[in-house]
């Protein structure tokens, strides 16, 4: 499920590249994250044959992944979630990774009035973006971000309204700020065996030769 206000146009090239054998959905209004209480991507849930959620995590990269950010790249994630998913598909309720009802209740995030208002405001922003009213879209994106400052989906989707370069710079600025001023970890550890948990605010940077050269020059 691609959560992207740009719709199919924004995400189709990744679908094509993945040549998926599974069902693919574009969710331009972030309906799924709202329902499951996710504030970032990638996120995932396992739903059993009876419609019960038996696990729900954020930061569920299917493999070690490299994401480009300007002159550098960050390496995030590992294959712990994919391995656990295969185990659940094979063993069902006997998989050691299935959550009990109590564990699920512990993990599902409560939504207070402010977060509910943020959700409605974010959806208003997405609407104005879709109809091409950029000024009103930006106004409501900003309002939603103020109401729910920990919601990376609202932050990054909203910033993308101003362009991908603007969004990338904002992500770098915010992660840098959080690294210095907070112990927040937006991807909580999933609690899976072999997981190489790394705080989102402490990504592993892979600089391009050009960026390495610029860094060296700046150090002099």
């Amino acid at each position: 499920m691609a959560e992207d206000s740009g719709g199919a146009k924004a995400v189709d090239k990744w679908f094509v590249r993945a040549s998926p054998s599974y069902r693919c959905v574009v969710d331009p209004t972030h309906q799924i994250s709202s329902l499951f209480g996710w504030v970032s991507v990638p996120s995932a849930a396992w739903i059993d044959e009876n419609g019960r959620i038996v696990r729900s995590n954020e930061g569920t990269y299917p493999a070690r992944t490299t994401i480009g950010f300007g002159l550098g790249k960050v390496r995030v994630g590992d294959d712990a979630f994919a391995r656990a998913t295969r185990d659940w598909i094979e063993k069902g309720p006997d998989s050691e990774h299935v959550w009990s009802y109590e564990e699920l209740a512990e993990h599902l995030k409560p939504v207070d009035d402010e977060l509910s208002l943020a959700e409605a405001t974010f959806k208003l922003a997405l609407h104005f973006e879709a109809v091409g009213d950029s000024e009103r879209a930006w106004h409501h994106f900003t309002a939603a971000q103020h109401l729910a400052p920990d919601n990376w989906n609202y932050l990054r989707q909203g910033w993308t309204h101003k362009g991908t370069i603007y969004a990338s710079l904002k992500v770098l600025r915010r992660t840098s700020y959080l690294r210095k001023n907070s112990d927040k970890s937006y991807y909580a550890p999933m609690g899976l065996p072999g997981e190489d948990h790394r705080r989102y605010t402490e990504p592993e940077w892979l600089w391009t030769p050009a960026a390495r050269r610029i860094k060296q020059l700046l150090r002099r």
Partner: protein
Amino acid sequence: MIILANGKTHRVARRTEPAGALWVRMDELPRATGWQMKPEGACLGDLCVPLPGDKREEWIADADDWVWFCYSEFADRIGQKYVRDGDVWSLGSVPQVRQAGLESGLAPDFEVTERNGHTLRLSDLRGRKVVLFTWSSW
């Protein structure tokens, strides 16, 4: 007038007066909000909320040759948040639905359009294991 709810955009009729509240024509209420009026009250799936006796006349009105329901007053009563900009109203999640999900552990049902244009409801996949995975381009 436009109502944004449950991931969809709904164009609905606007009551001429009064302008400050969200009035929804009763026949458009289920499509626009998911709620429908039944003898036991306003119902959303299995969830039914009785209308307070003293509010029934205030919240249900005949106007412009139609029967209207004051949805914003109802939303205030059930704690559902909403925000408005001009002719567009955006409704947040219904807190009782989310609470019911937390208590039952059941995945909330939803309807989305697949890349091939087909409509997919989560409940249509009952009897099979489902791995729900979100990602984005940004």
